[in-house]
């Protein structure tokens, strides 16, 4: 019971602090940079690649799939990589990690709270980018399966948060290079999860790897929910329920893995004195 209370305390503290750090709409300039300009510019790069080469330009049937994959991928960058960045940020820039660890709250819960704040902030960017796509890029989204959308979003975001904590555990241990872990993983997942192109194009071993990663199924479920069809022929045989089941399974796996491995990482970090390591980044 006490552990649960501490975890909840940690979650609340993390979410509050995360919100204070991340929420920037009180400053229009920062809001414009991070929530509008950067995500929209990222999508526009794809737009022009299509306009230059693709048959039919934006009418190419692949475009809405790629647009949606890239837009929802903002969650991966913000939540999954963001949580591991919090560890680096708190330790290196604010020197706060050791105090969070010493406080009678749960570091795991605290990081989950930071993830919750990041999810909220990312949601703003995702909604703006989706609206931009519908208004200017002729992307037609339909809410054909609201149940699928809600379930996929919930399970997928939870999974991202738990895997983010797993990554945070890795960041704890590699103090000197902790800042790059999130970016490298996010870049790798963008490639392997077929966010912007069909998995079939990848060499066989990478394709197999991609099929083993939860975000692949998450993005596919979102595409089905909002566009009525998925992108990857490899997953076409799976029903919506099966997709959700895989997602649920991978979320549970994420919970178990993150809980176990993060605790182990925490113990090792304490033993090696990594919680307050300043590396002069």
């Amino acid at each position: 019971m006490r552990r649960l209370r501490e975890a909840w305390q940690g979650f609340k503290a993390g979410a509050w602090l995360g919100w204070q750090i991340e929420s920037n709409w009180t400053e229009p300039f920062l809001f414009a940079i991070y929530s509008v300009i950067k995500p929209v510019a990222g999508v526009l790069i794809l737009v022009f690649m299509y306009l230059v080469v693709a048959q039919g330009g934006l009418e190419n049937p692949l475009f809405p799939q790629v647009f949606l994959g890239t837009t929802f991928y903002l969650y991966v960058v913000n939540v999954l990589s963001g949580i591991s960045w919090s560890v680096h940020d708190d330790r290196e820039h604010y020197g706060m990690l050791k105090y969070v660890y010493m406080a009678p709250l749960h570091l795991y819960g605290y990081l989950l709270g930071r993830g919750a704040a990041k999810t909220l902030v990312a949601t703003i960017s995702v909604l703006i980018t989706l609206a931009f796509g519908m208004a200017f890029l002729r992307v037609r989204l339909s809410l054909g399966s609201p149940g699928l959308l809600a379930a996929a979003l919930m399970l997928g975001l939870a999974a991202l948060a738990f895997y983010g904590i797993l990554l945070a555990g890795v960041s704890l241990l590699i103090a000197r290079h902790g800042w790059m872990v999130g970016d490298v993983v996010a870049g790798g997942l963008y490639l392997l999860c077929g966010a912007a192109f069909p998995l079939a194009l990848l060499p066989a071993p990478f394709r197999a790897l991609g099929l083993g990663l939860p975000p692949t199924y998450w993005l596919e479920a979102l595409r089905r929910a909002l566009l009525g069809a998925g992108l990857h022929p490899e997953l076409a045989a799976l029903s919506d329920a099966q997709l959700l089941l895989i997602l649920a399974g991978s979320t549970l796996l994420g919970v178990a893995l993150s809980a176990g491995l993060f605790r182990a990482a925490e113990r090792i970090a304490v033993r090696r004195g990594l919680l307050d390591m300043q590396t002069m980044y």
Partner: protein
Amino acid sequence: MTWQIRTFLRTVVGRAYPRFIGVWREKSWVIFDVFFPLLQVSAYVYIYRAIGAPPEFAGFAVLGGAMIAYWMNVLWSMASQLYWEKETGNLQLYLIAPTSRMAILLGMALGGLTATTVRAAGVILVGALLFRIPLRVGHGALFLGVFLLTLVALYGLGMLLSSVFLLWGREAWHLSNLFMEPVYLFSGFYFPVRALGFWVALVASVIPITLGLDALRQLLYPQLMERFRFLPVEAELGALAALAVLFLFLAHRGLRFFEELARREGRLTLRGQ
């Protein structure tokens, strides 16, 4: 040689040294500066493949990925560098030294440029091998000339930005962030800039990589680029030379102006703004 010239040269070498030595001492850059850009480049290569683009477009993506290394270096290690130097206390030590500020910026630029060239070469080499990208340079000297002039203009812009950023505190960090994805878009890092329309491309040419990339692509893939070229290579070369001179001149003037302004407003040593 007068004392001033000797000190100028010593300063350039002295300030370039940490950047140069960093490449050999901190091997982690291989992961972040070669492996990570390659992940991005690979994604763009597959996007092109998915829409049936000719193989040269993969070359566009790899070349763009390599040039991003320079742009990142200019943004984070030139433009906002003086902000970090202020935070660590180095800036005030630079400013009280009896040496030219341009020499310090030049040292930073040369060191960064050398280190980044190693990184960019890594991206091109691994990318070309991985995706079997056709790289045939018809006019070697011209190619080299465009490349070098692009870098001179680009680092000139970096020096100018760093003098402007001298006034800023944490805003410098946000401005550098602002100049990432939008610049990848408007400078045509992953697609021919002509696609944005002539006037947009013209405005985007204020960032030298826009013209440099277009010219390099024309020299690498002359046939394909006939349809997409923004300006003739010679015109781009001329514009790059003009930009190089302009930026270096403005950096020189800007540094003096902004340093004076910052000294008046007490912003040269203020930390944690």
